[in-house]
């Protein structure tokens, strides 16, 4: 035809891979540009969800070893290196993606892509070699990169971002998740928060997550903002910060400073306007999916689904659009938090406090009993509409395996879950998840919401 390729995908992360693999299966062939030093898989595989979850698991296993002694196991004190095991897994994922692309006849170019005009992409490799290609359609899935606080002297020079260890989404949970597993493997950790933690999430739930962390040795500097980072002759970093309540300045020394202050797409070379509902930009044949697009939940699964659906629409096989509502999310902090739907604040905002009913419960996981672990922050909350069958607007859970619990209930949510449905569901016992279908105390009643007995 008149173009070198039917489709060029810029970006080899979650969105880009899903889109190009789908299109290849649907009989198109196109290159997938990727210009980073990482292997294939993008942020998720290399510095995001995958290493994050593995390190969270490493920390959880530390806790499990301590619990094990209470259950009668003789466990010696020992520590083994985790970094190498995690990195090996990531490399095997990089390779897995590479094999898949090749197998599906997707041409892969390890080069950095940028837009020349509506149908032309320029690509540059690590040695500076350039090539140009024309495409009928172009999809940008180049993701985001962590931001540095540019107004803080020494921030970029002496601090690191999650990209050096790992990284996930920007809703402030990165800071908490990383602090969580770093403390879990024995490091003295402080989290500095300017305003609130987990902005955009239900604030009651956010409070439970952070109180649990504080009770387990993680220090928080609330309402503080960093001013300066200086490297001392000893090699340690001296951080100066201001307490916004008192406007007093404080100083302390640390081995490492980790910035988790948000992410932004590197669109300097791409002249993309705001993305429309069907991932289209202001240019008809150019699309954007994943973190690079504005106003979408910045999550791997949404990028993957959006990538696949877009591919099908471009090939003309489908008109299905991505639904960005009701996406279940899990924060992998030491006490995990899973949710789907609206926060209590947002539900009140949309429907009015009188039109909603909140069922809640403080519960204790059975496993915590013998282990003598504190369950004070293990909590469930379901926000419903007041009238009729009481449709569920938001579901919130803190506790072990929150991700697994939430994924299961999010399916019900997708099908129009109501409080009636929950009450009519028979429990599977003994589990933490069963507490969701046992909910019967409302916030409105003011009664004690602590679960007692079976």
């Amino acid at each position, binding site marked *: 035809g008149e173009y070198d390729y039917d489709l060029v995908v810029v970006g080899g992360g979650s969105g880009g891979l899903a889109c190009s693999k789908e299109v290849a299966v649907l009989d198109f062939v196109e290159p997938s540009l990727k210009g980073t030093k990482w292997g294939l898989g993008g942020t998720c595989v290399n510095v995001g969800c995958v290493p994050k979850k593995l390190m969270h698991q490493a920390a959880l296993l530390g806790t499990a070893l301590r619990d094990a002694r209470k259950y009668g196991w003789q466990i010696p004190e020992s520590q083994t290196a985790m970094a190498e095991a995690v990195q090996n897994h990531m490399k095997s994922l990089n*390779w897995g993606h590479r094999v898949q692309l*090749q*197998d599906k006849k997707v041409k892969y170019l390890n080069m950095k892509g940028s837009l020349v005009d509506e149908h032309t992409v320029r690509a540059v490799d690590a040695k500076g070699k350039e090539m140009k290609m024309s495409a009928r359609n172009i999809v940008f899935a180049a993701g985001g990169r962590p931001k540095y606080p540019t107004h803080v002297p020494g921030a970029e020079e002496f601090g690191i971002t999650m990209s050096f260890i790992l990284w996930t989404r920007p809703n402030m949970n990165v800071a908490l998740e990383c602090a969580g597993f770093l403390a879990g493997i024995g490091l003295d950790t402080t989290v500095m928060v300017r305003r609130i933690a987990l902005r955009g999430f239900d604030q009651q739930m956010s409070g439970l997550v952070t109180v649990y962390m504080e009770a387990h040795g993680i220090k928080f500097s609330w309402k503080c903002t960093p001013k300066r980072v200086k490297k001392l002759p000893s090699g340690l970093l001296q951080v100066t910060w201001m307490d916004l309540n008192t406007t007093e300045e404080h100083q302390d020394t640390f081995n490492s400073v980790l910035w988790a202050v948000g992410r932004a797409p590197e669109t300097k070379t791409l002249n993309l306007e705001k993305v429309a509902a069907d991932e289209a930009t202001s240019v008809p044949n150019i699309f954007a999916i994943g973190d690079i697009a504005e106003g979408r939940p910045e999550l791997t699964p949404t990028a993957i689904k959006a990538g696949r659906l877009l591919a099908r629409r471009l090939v003309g096989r489908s008109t299905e659009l991505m639904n960005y509502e009701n996406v279940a999310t899990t924060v992998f902090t030491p006490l995990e938090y899973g949710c789907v739907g609206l926060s209590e604040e947002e539900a009140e905002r949309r429907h009015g406090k009188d039109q909603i009913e909140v069922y809640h419960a403080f519960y204790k996981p059975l496993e915590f009993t013998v282990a003598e672990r504190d369950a004070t922050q293990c909590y469930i909350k379901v926000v419903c509409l007041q009238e009729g069958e009481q449709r569920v607007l938001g579901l919130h859970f803190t506790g072990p395996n929150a991700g697994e619990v939430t994924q299961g209930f999010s399916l019900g949510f997708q099908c129009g879950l109501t409080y009636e449905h929950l009450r009519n569901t028979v429990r599977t016992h003994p589990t933490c998840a069963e507490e969701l279908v046992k909910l019967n105390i409302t916030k409105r009643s003011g009664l004690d919401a602590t679960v007692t007995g079976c």
Partner: protein
Amino acid sequence: MTKYEDVAVHGYEEFCKAVSERKGKEIFAYFSGDKDDQGKSWCPDCVKAEPVVRGELSYLPEGSVFIYCQVGDRPYWKDPNNDFKKTLKLTGVPTLLRYGTPQKLVEEECFKADLVRMLFTED
């Protein structure tokens, strides 16, 4: 003059010895079930994959090593505790791998010349 070294070994000990004698070199290894007196392996996939792999050897990087390793007879291979499975973490034969990395092709993947070439040529 071939630009890579072609080594043939039999069994786990010989394999480890061959690797330790070539420290610092880039090593590719192909693991196959033992061949009988007529040169035919008990593993049908290995029989199918070998010509494909051999056909791509010219793409091996300069100075690299190609080790052709017969793992043992069928009963040895079937034992889940054999050294190849336990220590090298092999899951099947044939396996073609870049030693010391997670990059490998297993079973039917070895039938595809373009995947073999990709393993030999890409970083």
